[in-house]
């Protein structure tokens, strides 16, 4: 069947592509390897399909992974939370296995309908600097599990996120899971997101993760920001300020100022760069306070 203009009027259709529904990860990887960078994996499709309709993306082949069994697991295992490639945002929001910044971010991903299809792993691989999950992953020190023809490897999220819409996967690799550390001691986390309306990208998002030592001081800290730099950015100076100190409003305000200094926002329809920096400072403080309260509680 050929869809012509008469039949479809002014409908937005993606450019033509070949389609295969892979039955296994191995089959998906082989199909991807054969097609190279003109081939894309299709998971939730909530970013890819809109880009294809606008012809920002024109892959020659889609490898649909939705029918592969075993990729939808979400569970705590060996000190980390395992999130499989087909775990939807809604599954995370509803899961009893999640806590901290992950649990805090899940209900704020896009809107309920998108959360029913979109996946965490897809969002992570997409590397949109306005995507929320990569900030959560940077703050918690997560790893991306990639599978290629010669097996699996774990990639630190800091190495995985390379640039604007660019990850460090090889052409024949697929993200099969994300592993988020679950600390054994006292810890807490939070994601603070400012959005103009449900479903809009974050104007500003801040993920915070704290771990406390036995004496109540901060033993590990993660802070990362959404929509205020060309990629999701870790606020490393803020993190360094926090470690070794006791949680306090003054400390969190200082960390907020350091995060704001590390942000590189732009003036756009969502607000001025100057104002977004102020939001980063305030939201970093709030996210850290919520994380500390959780860790202490």
């Amino acid at each position, binding site marked *: 069947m050929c869809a012509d203009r008469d039949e479809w009027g002014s409908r937005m*259709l993606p450019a033509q592509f070949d389609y295969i529904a892979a039955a296994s990860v191995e089959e998906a990887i082989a199909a991807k390897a054969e097609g190279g960078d003109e081939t894309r994996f299709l998971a939730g499709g909530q970013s890819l399909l809109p880009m294809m309709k606008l012809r920002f993306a024109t892959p020659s082949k889609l490898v649909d992974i939705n029918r592969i069994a075993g990729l939808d697991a979400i569970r705590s295992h060996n000190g980390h939370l395992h999130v499989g490639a087909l775990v939807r945002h809604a599954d995370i929001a509803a899961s009893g296995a999640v806590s901290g910044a992950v649990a805090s971010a899940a209900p704020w991903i896009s809107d309920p309908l998108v959360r029913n299809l979109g996946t965490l792993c897809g969002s992570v691989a997409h590397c949109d600097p306005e995507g929320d999950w990569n900030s959560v992953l940077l703050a918690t020190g997560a790893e991306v599990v990639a599978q290629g023809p010669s097996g699996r490897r774990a990639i630190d999220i800091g190495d995985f996120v390379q640039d604007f819409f660019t990850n460090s996967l090889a052409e024949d690799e697929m993200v099969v899971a994300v592993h988020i550390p679950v600390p054994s001691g006292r810890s807490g986390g939070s994601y603070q997101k400012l959005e103009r309306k449900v*479903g809009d990208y974050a104007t500003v998002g801040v993920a915070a993760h704290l771990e406390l030592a036995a004496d109540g001081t901060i033993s590990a800290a993660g802070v990362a920001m959404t929509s205020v730099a060309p990629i999701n950015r870790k606020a490393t100076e803020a993190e360094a300020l926090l470690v070794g100190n006791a949680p306090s409003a003054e400390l969190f305000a200082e960390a907020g100022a350091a995060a704001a200094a590390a942000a590189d926002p732009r003036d756009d329809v969502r607000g001025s760069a100057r104002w977004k920096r102020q939001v980063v400072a305030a939201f970093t403080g709030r996210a850290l306070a919520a994380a500390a309260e959780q860790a202490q509680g």
Partner: protein
Amino acid sequence: MEITININGSDHTADVEPRLLLVDHIRTGAGLTGTHIGCDTTSCGVCTVLVDGTPVKSCTMLAVQADGREVTTVEGLKSADGLHPVQQAFSDEHGLQCGFCTPAMMLVGAALIDDNPDPSDDEVRWAISGNLCRCTGYMNIVKAIQAAAAAASSNGDS
């Protein structure tokens, strides 16, 4: 490629291009125009249908992805016993103005009360937060979904 989708209880088999969107397959292929197209950019939610009972935007899913699955559109809400409780409640509570968002709102409402038989005001607002009503008639939409939940529970009890 050939696909078979169970739409509102009947199997529809068709030979489609992979790039055909589910919403176009429903409207043009199956001739069910109760599913609307609004923004076409994954923003407004008027193309909402239930796939295996879960509300999704049919403008952001390929028809081939629905192969072998069950799709419910607004035309499938009514049963032999008459209108679905959400349909009756949208009529009783004036849950619509222009009606363009109504099929989607009713499907989201039906899925919500399947899952949560007594949703609070906040829970209803949260559930419909991906669906825009450009008449801004949200008050009566929320009232209608809550009335439908109450009616569905009392029917279940009797």
